[in-house]
């Protein structure tokens, strides 16, 4: 792994553009292919040379064997002439003798490297021809007995010697041929090793270069991609480290500098947002005080503290009260959200009973549900141990979910359920309302967002309930989600750790 990474890093550190690196790698592979081809050609040339040498040796052996054959034939001719000393046989024998010149010339032509042996051969042949001629002449002269004696005592041993000399030539040529065949085999083996080595080397080099170059590109791209993902998630804390000294190295530098700039901008935006939230929190608080006063006085007026209310005024006063309460709710929501965003909302942790929390929420919404003729039910596992958390905020989150369910459900039922997990609880609110399309499910947890903007008007919502519930749940370390489809109702759920320390 170390060697591999080192190779990738080395290739990355080469101060050249990626295109140049790729071209250099391809050039190197091409060179290996050329070397492979050249090796093959050299091997073929050597094999061709060896083939030529072997053919030459074969010519040598043929010439030597022809000489051996002619020597024996010569001896046979002389013997025949001795046995039947007629003119035709004698002439034939003499003609055979003259053939030696041709044999010797041929041997001298093909065996230039056997000078010493050829010299001896020529010398012995000269003697053989002289003695054979003498035998034939003695025979022609009718001195048959003397001719036989010369043939036995001189010609036959001389023929033996000649045979051994030509044997030596044949054996040497055959040994040379064996050497040649062995050398050809060795050449083939060597060539095979070279070709296989070059092919294998080329293959491995191609793999290594392909690997090194591709990873020297892919690794920085992956790191940059990962860095961009972190930036997208709002994490500007680390720089991307790329050792490349090519276009990717430059790209990584640009990403780092862009990231730094974005971090500055993000910080500015966060500061601005915090200031806005602070302002909204302050404003909400300031707005709530006179509004409470207006509502209080309105209530007193409706209660007749300031005298009987004319029947004509009662309806407008009640409408004022109703709208004032709605406005107060909106201001409260904005205040909560602003506090959360400004970092001013902290959890008040304490022991609480899940069952009591659910029952409290049920009690708060029971009348609302009854007004819309909706059935509402709760299901909490019995005997749950006390939980630890901010009961008020969790009740607020659950209340928001149940309030929304009642608000958006025209008929059917609402069910509040709690499931126990290993170390957390899951609170669910299931309704039989219109349901939410999948595309809208992510939006509804954002501030000021509802599935349909017109709903805000008809249902009198601020669009902050789910956003606040989400923030509260996340502050507890839980998560919130919805399972729904159009026409099939919706189930909003959130988890809350059983105990927060």
């Amino acid at each position: 792994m170390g060697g591999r990474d080192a190779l990738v890093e080395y290739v990355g550190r080469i101060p050249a553009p990626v295109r140049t690196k790729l071209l250099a790698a391809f050039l190197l592979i091409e060179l290996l292919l050329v070397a492979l081809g050249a090796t093959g050609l050299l091997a073929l040339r050597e094999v061709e040379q060896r083939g030529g040498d072997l053919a030459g040796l074969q010519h040598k052996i043929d010439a030597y064997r022809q000489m051996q054959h002619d020597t024996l034939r010569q001896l046979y001719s002389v013997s025949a002439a001795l046995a039947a000393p007629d003119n035709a046989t004698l002439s034939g024998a003499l003609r055979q003798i003259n053939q030696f010149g041709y044999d010797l010339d041929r041997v001298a032509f093909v065996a230039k490297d056997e000078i010493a042996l050829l010299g001896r051969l020529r010398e012995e042949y000269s003697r053989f021809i002289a003695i054979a001629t003498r035998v034939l002449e003695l025979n022609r002269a009718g001195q048959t007995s003397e001719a036989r004696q010369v043939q036995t005592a001189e010609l036959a041993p001389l023929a033996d010697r000649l045979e051994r000399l030509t044997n030596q030539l044949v054996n040497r040529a055959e040994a040379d041929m064996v050497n040649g065949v062995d050398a050809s085999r060795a050449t083939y083996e060597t060539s095979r090793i070279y070709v296989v080595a070059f092919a294998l080397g080329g293959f491995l080099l191609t793999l290594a270069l392909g690997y090194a170059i591709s990873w020297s590109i892919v690794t920085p791209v992956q790191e940059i991609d990962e860095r961009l993902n972190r930036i997208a998630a709002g994490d500007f804390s680390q720089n991307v480290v790329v050792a490349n000294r090519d276009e990717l190295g430059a790209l990584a530098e640009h990403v780092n500098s862009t990231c730094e700039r974005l971090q500055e901008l993000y910080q500015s935006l966060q500061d601005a947002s915090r200031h806005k939230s602070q302002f909204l929190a302050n404003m909400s608080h300031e707005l709530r005080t006179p509004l409470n006063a207006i509502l209080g006085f309105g209530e007193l007026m409706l209660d007749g503290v300031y005298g009987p209310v004319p029947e004509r005024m009662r309806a407008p006063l009640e409408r004022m009260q109703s709208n004032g309460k709605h406005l107060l709710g909106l201001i409260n929501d904005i205040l909560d959200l602003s506090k959360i965003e400004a970092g001013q909302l902290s959890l008040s942790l304490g022991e609480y009973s899940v069952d009591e929390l659910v029952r409290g929420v049920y009690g708060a919404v029971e009348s609302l549900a009854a007004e819309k003729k909706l059935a509402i039910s709760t299901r909490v596992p019995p005997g749950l141990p006390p939980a630890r958390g901010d009961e008020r905020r969790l009740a607020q989150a659950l209340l928001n979910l149940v309030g929304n369910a009642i608000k958006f459900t025209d008929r059917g039922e609402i069910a509040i359920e709690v499931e126990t997990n290993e170390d957390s609880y899951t609170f669910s609110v299931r309704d039989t309302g219109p349901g939410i399309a999948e595309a809208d499910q992510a939006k509804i947890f954002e501030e000021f967002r509802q599935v349909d903007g017109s709903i805000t008007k008809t249902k009198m919502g601020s669009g902050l309930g789910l956003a606040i519930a989400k923030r509260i749940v996340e502050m507890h370390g839980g998560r919130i989600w919805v399972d729904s489809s159009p026409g099939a109702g919706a189930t909003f759920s959130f988890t809350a750790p059983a105990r927060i320390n």
Partner: protein
Amino acid sequence: MFPTRRDFLFAGGAAATAGLIWGDARRRARAQEAPPETTRIRLARGPSLCVMPQYVVDELLAAEGITRVDYIVSDSGPLLSEAIASGQIDFAMHFSGPLVLLLDRGRKVTMLAGVHVGCFELFAKDGIRSVADLKGRSVGAPALESSAHVFISAMAALVGLDPAKDINWVTSAEPKPIELFLDGKVDAFLGFPPEPQRLRAQGVGNVIVNSAQDRPWSQYFCCMLASNPEFVRTKPVAAQRVVRAILRATDLCVSAPTKVARQVVDRGFTPNYDYAVQTLSDVPYGRWRDYDPEDTIRFYALRLHEAGMIKSTPDRILDEGADWRFLREVRRELG
């Protein structure tokens, strides 16, 4: 060529004459030579009688300053080869084919001279007229890679047979292949003296190859003088004197065959005087001056290479295992 009585007379006369002239000069020259590095050598004692020169060499060696000769019992095949290579035997007359095989196997041995020609004969049943007829027949040999196996393989390769596939080898050290042949259990076998002489005396079998007469075998040595390379390297003077003594003993086999035969019988190397005399008559001992031992080794290496029994080239075999320095010198001395 089969040696005639005239050959023996000629060779004997020539040797005697040369001995008279050479003897005095040698005595004077030898007095000036350095003494041999050792006074003791170990020679092989095998079943074949064709190596008689090494059985009568002791007196000649004593004259060379080597006063003690020990004979180590061996076979005439792979065991003898191994004994030379391992240094258990210092010198031996050994067949050229097995020596080539030994060198090809990477064992070290040094061939110093060719000694004689034509000691083996290939016997076959009636109806088998040539080596080519051995295809598909059973042939007896003491063991694979024995001298008989190697020589027959070389013969088979020369006529295009594959000895490993075309011949059914029957290997048997005991009973010997000659006994199997006589019992009709094998179709052919290669006889070494005194086996051919015994079969001829019994009038059994037909000879399809007589290496003393039939070409090309008659043109090459069959027995070489071989030595342990370490001995040659460390004791060159002794080695030269052994070569000289063995070749003089070979001359003695030509010039005084009856004396040699008597000595061989008296010393217990063989019980049968007639076979010894017949062997000395059948085997041409007088050709070591004329024949080229290097060409012999080259020839057999080629044949064994053809037979697929060796991988080395003839040149490599010669490079590894031949040293003709002493032979050339002895040839100059002995004429």
